[in-house]
């Protein structure tokens, strides 16, 4: 009966209730988006790191992978040391460099990775074949579009270009054998991959036998953090980064972002709270006579409180459910805008839907609805019955 009466009170002023529900839905959408934003990028980054099954990344000492142009020397020697640890299952050294391709009378520049195709974790093949032999390359659609090339075409690729003399260095003819998507690459980043020895042969002597990054898989059951500690002990020229430490570093870098999301989320929650409190308070003020009569005929204070809190909760929950849908739509739209930010991997999502985020938003809004109902409920339950009836009679 109490729930019926609560819903009845809301249905009595349909337009007003609808506006409040829409207001709460907007606040809920904002809250969900902020919860998704606060956790989404971190989770998305974690999923990205885990996607290829590599547990540890080695970068030049004091840097993050591909954060600078610095490289790790003596790839062969380091590989030998790494192989001495039985917990290490696979080692994938990667050398990053820039490339220049002359196409249609202009220079197109991009980046190239020198990899070992049997253990690489940087791209996935979309069509064609991988770099199974020297003298071939795979490229992403963006690069192929810029140089108007297709699988089977041969391109003149250089690792150095002097714009003053318009001369190339480290130039070599490479045949395109496949289309790929780079997992860590940005959308508008011209990228290619070749075998590491192919890239070595195109680089100057100073860049040979070097790697920008090692990616390491550990044996199942082995502790990646223990392996990481072992690597840093035995190879002092590298920083070993496990997924946990990478996420910790990302957390540190995203802390401002997260604080902003928390503040905006709290503001939207507060706005929703005020909206519901105002609506229910107005509704209670309009029904003081009715409430006083209910009290007079024997309805307890507790039941009045429950009925009015139920009104607040009903508005909040319906608004929250609508807001979840609205939040997902706006998150998708905002994600598309933010993902176009230059230099960000396409696989990174700013707004990642996680059921836990939705439950958190719904839970917070329900709690807010309870909180919002408490003040008007307290007012209603505290109405002096006889005085209210006297005022009503005079009115």
């Amino acid at each position, binding site marked *: *009966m109490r729930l*019926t009466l609560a819903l*009845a009170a809301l249905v009595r002023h349909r337009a007003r209730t609808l506006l409040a529900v829409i207001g709460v839905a907007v606040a809920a959408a904002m809250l969900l988006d902020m919860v998704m934003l606060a956790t989404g990028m971190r989770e998305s980054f974690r999923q990205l790191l885990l996607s290829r099954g590599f547990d540890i990344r080695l970068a030049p000492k004091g840097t993050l992978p591909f954060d600078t142009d610095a490289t790790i020397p003596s790839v062969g020697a380091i590989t030998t040391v790494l192989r001495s640890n039985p917990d290490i299952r696979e080692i994938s050294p990667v050398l990053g460099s820039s490339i220049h391709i002359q196409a249609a009378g202009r220079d197109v520049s991009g980046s190239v990775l020198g990899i070992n195709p049997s253990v690489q974790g940087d791209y996935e093949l979309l069509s064609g074949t991988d770099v199974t032999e020297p003298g071939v390359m795979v490229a992403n659609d963006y690069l192929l579009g810029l140089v108007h090339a297709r699988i089977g075409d041969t391109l003149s690729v250089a690792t150095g270009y002097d714009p003053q003399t318009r001369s190339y260095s480290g130039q070599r003819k490479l045949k395109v054998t496949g289309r790929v998507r780079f997992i860590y690459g940005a959308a508008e980043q011209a990228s290619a991959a070749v075998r590491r020895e192919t890239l070595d042969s195109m680089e100057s002597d100073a860049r040979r036998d070097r790697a920008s990054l090692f990616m390491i898989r550990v044996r199942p059951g082995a502790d990646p953090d223990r392996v990481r500690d072992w690597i840093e002990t035995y190879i002092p020229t590298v920083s070993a980064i496990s997924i946990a430490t990478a996420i910790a570093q990302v957390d540190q870098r995203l802390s401002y972002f997260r604080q902003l999301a928390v503040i905006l989320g709290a503001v939207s929650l507060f706005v929703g709270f005020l909206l519901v409190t105002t609506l229910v308070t107005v509704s209670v003020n309009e029904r003081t006579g009715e409430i006083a009569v209910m009290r007079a*005929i024997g309805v307890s*204070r507790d039941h009045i409180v429950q009925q009015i809190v139920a009104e607040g909760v009903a508005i909040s929950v319906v608004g929250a459910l609508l807001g979840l849908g609205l939040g997902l739509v706006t998150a998708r739209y905002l994600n598309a805008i933010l993902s176009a930010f230059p230099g960000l991997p396409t696989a990174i999502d700013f707004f990642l839907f996680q059921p836990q985020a939705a439950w958190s938003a719904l839970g917070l809004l329900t709690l807010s609805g309870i909180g919002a109902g408490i003040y008007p409920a307290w007012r209603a339950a505290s109405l002096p019955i*006889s*005085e209210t009836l006297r005022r009503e009679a005079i009115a």
Partner: protein
Amino acid sequence: MSEPTDAGTVHLDRVVVSLRDVHRDYMLGAERVHALQGVTLDVERGDYVAIVGPSGCGKSTLLNLIGAIDQPTSGSVEISGKRVDTLGDWQATSFRLRNIGFVFQRFYLMPILTALENVSLPMAEAKLPREEQRARAAELLSYVGLSNRGRHRPSQLSGGEQQRVAIARALANRPALLLADEPTGELDAHTGADIIALFKRLNGDGVTIVVVTHDEELANAARRKIHMRDGRVVDDAGGHA
């Protein structure tokens, strides 16, 4: 429980309402208003009492004290042998639910509930089984002549019909006492006459009624008429003698 009053002999075992030297003051801005000044009164089971007097003489205040929705500044109020002026809110609410039925001038039915549901409301609050609620609500609606209007909402009922539903609601938990504050105040003469007839029938069936009214016809229908002025009982026609 009660002692003899100025009005005459009281049958102690039959007294439903007993007020002794009741005062009720309240503040109106900075001014203290003496709404009731030493009212002593008994109402016996089966009485039909009309309290009349000019506006502001304390009629409604007296009814509120009898109904345990207000407390006196001093004096005592007993209903069915229980001191209600000293009850806390929870106890007073529970007491009202089971012992007192209220009828108001403006009906105050819940607009979204049907007539049957409105009558069931006090029974639901008293946690009666749902089947019993339905059966009794239907029986009460039939008693007040609205057996075919149970599924109608208040907005679909006339003023007189709404007041009859309110009376049925007041009787839901079989109260010892029915209190009515200007029950014909919002009704035309013809509909008011129907309500007066219903009250007489209720009283004839043993319901104790105390009604506050300006309506001469309603007051004349009562077996006992108490006149009030300036917070005092000035005449008690038909009092216990």
